[in-house]
């Protein structure tokens, strides 16, 4: 039997973080966007302990202010791309309002830290979502294109090909064969 499981990364991460902090007896409040306020003073050793514990799952404490902002930008983009009514928002306005900085400033910081642009990151995330939808195989390419706010299937296919170097149908075929190969 094969099951396709949909999951929400945000919920998983918050839950995992919560359990770990509780296990370490740390009192905290979550402020959203991956920001956490620790209520008591904890010593450096306990903090290091927590960092080591979280590391295997890819959690990392961000220490530099610009990196913090970039992480917030990325989280906001992911939120926008994975919303079902994302068609109603213009990404630059969404980001500026959400993060309380001008889009120009956000865009500069993002490029400075990641060596790539916000626009590229949005495309990468949209294509990532398209990949997930293609794999789940519940929607046609036309429906996927509409959901992700592309003007046409051709537009989605072109951007998919430009981003990954392969066409959506080749992608679908390869992933399918790769899975069969793993059995």
């Amino acid at each position: 039997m094969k099951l396709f499981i949909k999951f929400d990364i945000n919920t998983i991460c918050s839950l995992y973080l919560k359990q770990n902090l509780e296990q370490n007896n740390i009192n905290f409040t979550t402020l959203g966007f991956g920001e956490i306020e620790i209520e008591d003073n904890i010593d450096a050793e306990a903090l290091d302990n927590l960092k080591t514990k979280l590391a295997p799952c890819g959690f990392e404490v961000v220490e530099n202010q610009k990196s913090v902002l970039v992480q917030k930008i990325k989280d906001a983009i992911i939120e926008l791309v994975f919303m079902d009514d994302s068609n109603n928002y213009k990404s630059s306005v969404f980001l500026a309002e959400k993060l309380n900085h001008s889009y120009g400033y956000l865009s500069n910081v993002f490029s400075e830290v990641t060596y790539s642009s916000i626009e590229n990151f949005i495309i990468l995330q949209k294509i990532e979502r398209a990949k997930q939808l293609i794999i789940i195989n519940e929607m046609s390419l036309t429906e996927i294109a509409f959901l992700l706010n592309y003007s046409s299937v051709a537009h989605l296919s072109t951007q998919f090909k430009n981003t990954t170097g392969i066409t959506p149908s080749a992608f679908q075929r390869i992933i399918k064969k790769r899975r069969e190969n793993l059995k």
Partner: protein
Amino acid sequence: MQKNALHILLADDDEDDRLFFKDAFEEIKIQTNVNFVHDGMQLMDHLMNTDNKLPDILFLDLNMPKKTGKECLIEIKKTEHLKDIIIAIYSTSSSEEDIEDTFIQGANIYIKKPSDFNTLKKIINEVVTVNWHYHTSGLNRDNFLLRLK
């Protein structure tokens, strides 16, 4: 961008290609640490030796003496502690069959060896940047396929 330099390993039997590759990595902005092996046997020995740090990205030539890139790819994907390494095939072949086959065997990236230096630099830059996004933005590595010409 990141505290530690990115670890790169290239397996290629052609000395000119190795030099070309090394120079390109020296010219990009992202800090990297590039190592080389000359054939498939040496590659597998290097990866199996637990004293060596595993690469963040392995660039793999398909056509190598002793053990081909494809054999190495299959072996790596079957080895528990190696199967999560991001693998970029780096080959002169542009046959659709080779491309699709290596993707199916688990390669993440397919690069057709470019003939000029600037294209190589551009390609390497793109690989490193996209890889970094996959590393830091919760993207699913199982879906990471990228073909560059």
